């Protein structure tokens, strides 16, 4: 069994108010390391066996069509061991 991970992030030019709120909360708790924070989504997809290139291409298509909105988001697809 393998796990395919799709990470979805808002494009850099799109305002991320949630990330801004997290970024503002950190120093209130004494964490002063963050210059900025962006918040995204992670999808974990389990499949039987090792993924074939054709399956990965299908996941790319699904990410483009459903998991991410390419108007405002970017995504990456990777296999996690």
């Amino acid at each position, binding site marked *: 069994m393998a796990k395919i991970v799709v990470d979805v992030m*808002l494009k850099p*030019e*799109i*305002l991320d*108010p*949630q990330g801004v*709120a997290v970024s503002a909360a950190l120093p209130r708790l004494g964490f002063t390391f963050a210059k900025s924070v962006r918040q995204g989504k992670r999808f974990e997809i389990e499949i039987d066996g090792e993924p074939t290139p054709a399956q990965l291409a299908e996941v790319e298509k699904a990410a483009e069509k*459903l*998991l991410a*909105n390419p*108007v*405002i988001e970017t995504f990456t697809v990777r296999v996690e061991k």
Partner: protein
Amino acid sequence: MKVGVVTFPGTLDDRDAARAATHAGTTAVSLWHNDADLKGVDAVILPGGFSYGDYLRCGAISRFAPVMEKIIDAANGGMPLLGICNGFQVLCEAHLLPGALTRNHELHFLCRDQKLEITNNQTAWTSSYKVGQEIVIPLKNGEGSFQCDDATLAALEGEGRIVARYVGENPNGSRNKIAGITNERGNVVGLMPHPEHAIDPLTGPTADGLAFFTSVLNAMVK
């Protein structure tokens, strides 16, 4: 004239939308998300709410509902289609309108009476207004910030496709204070505030929203 009002699981404002359509002198017809049948309607309203619980992204799941396939085909053929609030989000996800609606810039869910300026009265849904007319209708959303890239924004501005703008302070961070837009043809309109809640002073702040629903009647009669 028959106006279809779609109900998705989680839709809230279908009854008010149907009431507004009836008030304007049209016949409201309920459409169910899981039926690939438009029941012979002449126009469709996608009402507000939280379809499919706003899971994934607002409107992202609804966009693939069986009824949407028929609606997208009909809208591409010129049928008047109005998306209000969540309906606007569905229209953007369906790529019938450009851009996307994202989280309000100050993260708060807003619910208030909002002043708008109508900036285009050439659409199927705004012909009963005057350009420059100010109206007050309710605004209630958490993800109403209209975002798009610079080229899209320039095209919307250049082609006069911004239907309404917020007057006064920008409530949600929308680019250029955009409250509503239309497609190139003018038959598809997406609007974040709620005209269907302002059709009768008895139940709304004003009756300013009614003209959206009388506009489509005029558009069909012409």
